[in-house]
């Protein structure tokens, strides 16, 4: 069977590499990454790929939509379209955050393993991104609480344990989170000095 030519549109290098790995593991394909949005339509048209994969939320997607249409007489037609071969697969892909443009006439059996591989990678990214955001938020809160504790220790001459106990009691009394109380204290202290 002829090798399939796949283009991955992805700015983030690490993400792009991981997608490429996933695709290569699913078969012997020719995979190219385009990381730049300038001239996207032209680059894709030149390469004439069988499949283009792009993040559902990528603003450059609308450029691909143009390729998906039968073009006017002046433009070179690239008969690609949003994959509509298998409704469930399309839905799964969009939910995972990947959208696929497929050349006219490509058989579903050949599209499916590639989309499956892409979907798996995109699910992984989503999980990683959520974890990263949660870790970052927790770290930020920890920093703010530490600063609030230091302010209290200095202003009231108490030790760290007592400062934290005071923050926690205030938070409970006000039905707020410790981090929110700490944030307010840090801001107020900033205004007073």
């Amino acid at each position: 069977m002829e090798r399939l030519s796949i283009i991955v549109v992805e700015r983030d290098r690490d993400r792009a590499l991981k997608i490429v790995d996933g695709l290569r593991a699913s078969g012997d394909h020719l995979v190219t990454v385009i990381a730049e949005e300038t001239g996207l339509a032209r680059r894709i048209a030149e390469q004439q790929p069988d499949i283009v994969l792009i993040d559902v939320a990528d603003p450059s997607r609308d450029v691909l939509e143009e390729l998906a249409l039968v073009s006017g007489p002046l433009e070179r037609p690239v008969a690609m379209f949003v994959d509509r071969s298998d409704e469930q697969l399309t839905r799964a892909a969009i939910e995972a955050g990947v959208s696929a443009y497929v050349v006219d006439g490509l058989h579903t059996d050949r599209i499916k393993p590639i989309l499956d591989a892409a979907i798996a990678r995109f699910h992984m990214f989503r999980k990683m991104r959520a974890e990263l955001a949660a870790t970052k938020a927790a770290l930020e809160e920890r920093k703010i609480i530490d600063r609030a504790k230091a302010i209290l220790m200095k202003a009231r001459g108490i030790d760290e344990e007592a400062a934290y106990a005071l923050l926690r009691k205030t938070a409970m009394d006000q039905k707020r989170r410790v981090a929110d109380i700490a944030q307010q204290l840090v801001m107020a202290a900033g205004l007073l000095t």
Partner: protein
Amino acid sequence: MTDRLRLGYVPLTDAATLIIAQELGFAAEEGLALDLVRVDSWAQSRDLLGTGALDAAHMLVPMPIAQSLGLGPAYPAFDLLMILSQGGQAIAVSKAIEERLRDQGHDFDFHDPIAARDALERAHSGVLRVGVPFPFSTHAELVRHWLQNTPLSARLQVHTVPPPQMADALASGEVDAFCVGEPWASFAVERGVGALLLPGRAIWAAAPEKGLVTTRAFADTRPEATGRLMRALWRAGRWLDRPGNRGTAAEILSRADYLNLSPELCERGLLGRLHVTSTGELRDFPDFIRFHAEGATFPWRSIAAMMGAWMAARHGLDPGAAAAKAAECFRTDLYRRHLREAGAHLPGASARIEGAMRAPTQVAAEQGRMILGADAFFDGHVFDPAFPTR
């Protein structure tokens, strides 16, 4: 009971209706809690609506028409329930073209499509690449209509460029001109990479720009929520068209969680007072964008038919059949049913001859009479839905 709806919007000035409905409590008054979901491409908006991840979306008026003609992915049918805005687009040209136009004595009056077109034809030789936000957009139709039957139309290439990238595309020479919704035209002027030539409404006075779109299944199976949403947006549009409110709207739109641009930039289109060049030349175009007044929100089936016929002709489909098919996705029936109780003026007919009114005109309404805004094309084009192929 509170209905919770997920509503998609693309960050543009004309998303104001949704944002104001949420921020000023028009949604809450109807017992609606809106989750406004920011989307960054029109294709994404279509996909999220098509797969049920959104209940409704702020969408380019030609998009549900394209779906109904089979020019997109195979999703359940989409319907347009009401028009959310008219106008709001501007055509801009590159710095190089601006300079040549100026050398020829063009005055950038921002009002005369014929003078602007003739000047552009003299100022630019070779292929004219024009950026538009999406293949199925009022912008693409306006540009094509403006240049049709002139030598420029043979040299025209329409390219899709996402609005926030328009200024870069113009600066780097990817395109020679563009037609985009505010604030992205003013953004390019502010960056000093181009000049504004014309507002969309100078080409077509009633150019419908965005609509409220849901799946047909949603509109038909959840009439209560659909009605609430339509009334909330209709009242937000009415608020937006009251004199004096546009400055407040610009402040709200400019916030980081919406457009994240300066209020001054967001205000230009809303006030119809635009800087056409980076040296600050001001032009007033009253009602540059309209959200409500003079029947602007009524989803005329004849508009769908006309746009359907245009799109069909370009994509090798039968224009007559396409006009009939397209007209079905503009839900004048739901507009009447859900907005009657809110006090909307309801025209006596659901289709009309498009382009026939050069000035605001009194017409028969369900009760008494109502005034409809001008809807003429600059070149006198008319479309009769009874004869869609002429």
